[in-house]
């Protein structure tokens, strides 16, 4: 019977499929660990690039790296403005008389996490030494790795480029070869020599990319090190599914680190010093769910499955009434935390373009016609400060009283500027090209921009790109205008002002291709100055130059609103957030 055969065929095929399925399922199966209750449940709203300091150049990867790895320095948890303090270093690095040499003393008795990579000690983690610091920096320069941390030291440490080029030529890096600027003085002292005087270099030591890695693990795991991280940090990786979930357990061999006993004014009143002097970390486990869609992320938080959550833009109305927590969430005892982010969003004019780049009045007109207040209402629910210049609040150089004359929305003035620019009511001006991305937020932002320019008679040709195409266009100086954001690498206005330094032009970070010898001179001078009122004054005069030249429309400094569950203690928002989960404590009595 033909049909009977066929029927058998179907059922046997189904069985085969099921069997294959269960074998695969079984092999991926791990036993679920008992939840001790002392678990931090966090969310990552983006996929991460593995847990390897060398690749941690984005916020989300940096956060995960910061749980396992530690750098020589860190930012103070409570003090504001953000200040550096020693982490793996015993004390703050000492600067030599030449202004280029840093001597760093390391803490003694810092152990790497236990891992089978430490064969000499049967899996027990050995002590971290100056050799590891040198190895870590060489690794960032290893061309095979194409590390996202290379720019931090490229051209900065004496001899590192020679080492890098030799490795490129040989096709393989020689870690035994010495780098002049990276010197082991003794097992607990390392000396770093720079090519140029730089105060900003210290910030590098606190970045996730500069987390100290042991060579044994890197050698054993090779390319897979990013799935087998071994650091000195408070948490050890337990299980890593790059697509859905990362879990960590407390590192049993973590040295004695304690909760800080000093903060800024108001911290004591807010109960942030209650745990002062207690050993870190508080949590036994950290579970990070990777959820990229906002609806499940938000609903999971409301159900108490997540401890900390940003407020998605479109759930804002539900969460916040006025500027405070909605009654619904207040009843659940949730806490709202607000923080000014060290960043600036902007609309860039391509200064290399023969039209917008050569007509300052035209740029000023467009800048004046762009209603930032309305924009912030529409896109950020008012959760943003209107930018007057590139330097965000919280950094020396930001002047809250300064008003950028071309950022006060004034259509009449904008029209006048258009006439002066030679294009009365847009007459004679060709259609301008605006580059944008294809996601819904960019699309809506583009529509807003088109509408803002229409009263001036300016027409836009919108070119929509995928992310790689967009980057390629920018780095090749194509297009006339586009929107972008710059988040700080470190809390110093220099990180924003370098965006206008002519030597940083595309493909570097100076995306407007701005070039002004006067500005360059001031910038170079500022690099040699320590944080001081004189340097702040210099920063402010640099901003004035930029405001007149108007290579950007300075858009906004966004505020981050974060919610925490009532049982989360010691939470204080921080814009450079990596390595801070060790401070969070879960009050089990408040958790059902």
């Amino acid at each position: 019977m033909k049909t009977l055969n066929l029927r058998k065929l179907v059922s046997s095929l189904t069985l085969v499929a099921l069997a294959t399925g269960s074998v695969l399922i079984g092999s991926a199966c791990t036993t679920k660990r008992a939840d001790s209750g002392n678990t931090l449940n966090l969310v990552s709203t983006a996929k991460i690039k593995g847990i390897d300091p060398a690749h941690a150049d984005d916020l989300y990867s940096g956060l995960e790296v910061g749980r396992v790895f530690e750098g020589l320095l860190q930012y103070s948890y409570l003090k504001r403005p953000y200040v550096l303090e020693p982490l793996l270093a015993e004390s703050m690095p000492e600067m030599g008389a030449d202004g280029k040499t840093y001597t760093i003393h390391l803490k003694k008795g810092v152990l790497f996490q236990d891992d089978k990579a430490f064969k000499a000690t049967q899996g027990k983690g050995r002590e971290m030494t100056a050799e590891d610091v040198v190895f870590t920096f060489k690794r960032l320069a290893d061309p095979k790795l194409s590390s996202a941390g290379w720019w931090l030291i490229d051209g900065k440490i004496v001899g590192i480029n020679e080492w890098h080029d030799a490795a490129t030529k040989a096709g393989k890096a020689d870690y035994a070869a010495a780098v002049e600027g990276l010197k082991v003085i003794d097992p607990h002292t390392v000396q770093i020599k720079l090519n140029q005087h730089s105060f900003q270099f210290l910030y590098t030591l606190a970045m996730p990319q500069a987390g100290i890695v042991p060579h044994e693990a890197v050698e054993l795991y090779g390319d897979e090190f990013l799935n087998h991280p071994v650091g000195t940090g408070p948490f050890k990786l337990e299980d890593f599914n790059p697509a859905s979930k990362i879990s960590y357990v407390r590192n049993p061999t973590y040295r004695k680190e304690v909760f800080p006993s000093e903060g800024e004014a108001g911290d004591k009143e807010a109960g942030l010093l209650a745990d002062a002097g207690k050993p870190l970390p508080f949590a036994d486990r950290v579970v990070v769910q990777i959820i990229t869609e906002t609806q499940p992320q938000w609903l999971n938080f409301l159900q108490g499955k997540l401890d900390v959550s940003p407020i998605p833009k479109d759930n804002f109305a539900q969460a916040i009434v006025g500027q405070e927590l909605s009654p619904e969430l207040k009843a659940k005892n949730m806490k709202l935390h607000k923080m000014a982010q060290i960043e600036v969003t902007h609309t860039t004019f391509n200064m290399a373009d023969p039209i917008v780049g050569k007509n300052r009045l035209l740029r000023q007109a467009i800048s004046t016609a762009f209603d930032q207040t309305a924009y912030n209402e529409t896109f950020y629910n008012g959760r943003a400060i209107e930018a007057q210049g590139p330097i965000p609040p919280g950094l020396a150089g930001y002047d809250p009283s300064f008003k950028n004359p071309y950022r006060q929305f004034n259509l009449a003035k904008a029209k006048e500027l258009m006439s002066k620019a030679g294009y009365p009511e847009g007459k004679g001006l060709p259609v301008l090209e605006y580059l944008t991305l294809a996601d819904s937020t960019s699309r809506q932002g583009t529509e807003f921009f088109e509408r803002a320019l229409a009263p001036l008679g300016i027409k836009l040709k919108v070119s929509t790109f995928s992310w790689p195409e967009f980057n390629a266009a920018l780095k090749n100086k194509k297009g006339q205008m586009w929107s972008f954001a710059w988040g700080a690498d470190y809390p110093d206005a220099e990180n924003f002002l370098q965006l206008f330094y002519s030597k940083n032009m595309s493909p570097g970070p100076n995306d407007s291709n701005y070039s002004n010898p006067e500005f360059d001179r001031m910038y170079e001078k500022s690099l040699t100055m320590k944080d001081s009122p004189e340097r702040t004054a210099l920063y402010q005069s640099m901003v004035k130059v930029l405001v007149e030249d108007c290579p950007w429309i300075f858009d906004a400094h966004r505020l981050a609103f974060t919610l925490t569950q009532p049982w989360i203690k010691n939470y204080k928002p921080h814009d450079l957030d990596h390595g801070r989960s060790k401070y969070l404590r879960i009050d089990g009595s408040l958790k059902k």
Partner: protein
Amino acid sequence: MFVHIVRKLIGVIPIIFGVALVIFILLNVVGGDPTYQMVGKHATVHQIEELRHEYGFDLPKPVQFVQYLKQIVTFDYGRSYATKQRISDMIVGGIGPTLTLAIPAFILTTFIALCIGLLVAYYRGKWIDKVTVVFCVFGMSLSSLAYILFGQYFFAYKLGWFPISGYESGMLERFQYVAMPILIWVIVSLGYDVRFFRTAILEETNQDYVRTARAKGLTEPRVFFKHVLKNSMVPIVTNIVIEIPLLILGSFLLESFFGIPGLGSITMDAIHNSDFPVIKAMTTLQSLLFIFGNLATDVIYTLVDPRVKLS
């Protein structure tokens, strides 16, 4: 028989070559240059050149194509730009979750659709047939996104019947997470299947031998179950078997929205991140599965169905 299978296998080679060529042309030749996205915000011209060299983007296109063919054969697609993970590991890791969702959903859908299909085909032209068909078309005409957003908000959050999203790899835990996605899958795809099965059965109903059977005076149930059903199984089974290799594709939307780390959500992320190597690998893999699935169906048919002649 053996010769037949070998001949079929050889016949597959130009198709695979064609698929590889199309994918390569679209993603490597006319698609964008990924270097600029990878190099990061602090780039220098020198770094860009080095990166190009490191990843082999500076090689001539034919060389790159040969490399890609080698990737297909060795199942080593390199690493993702976005997650830095080895793509073959990502694929292997994604199969379990995808099948956990896809297999039960597929079996349920097929079973229910077959039952309904039989029912409406038997009562063809009657009100029950018409109502069911209209319902099916209604279900098909709605966007699946609407079902997902509503289901997640109402059943998972408001009523708390299911978890909102997430996945556990434990043998039993996983099923609570896939329960609602399975339900939505069934609802969304039921309409297509019912309609297809109904048509397949009806086509058989109008064959000459059925008329003969009726003329012989056989009762309608007897004609239907004994003759029509038996023969309409051929297109129905074909349709079911052909869909099996495609199950591994997973569902883009269901997996992404419910946080199931399967191949569908991997593909979706890759599209969002313009992660070309992953898009390329997933497209290639799915095409290969389709080709070999078809081949397997073909071979099995020649084994079981004497009507299919060996040519």
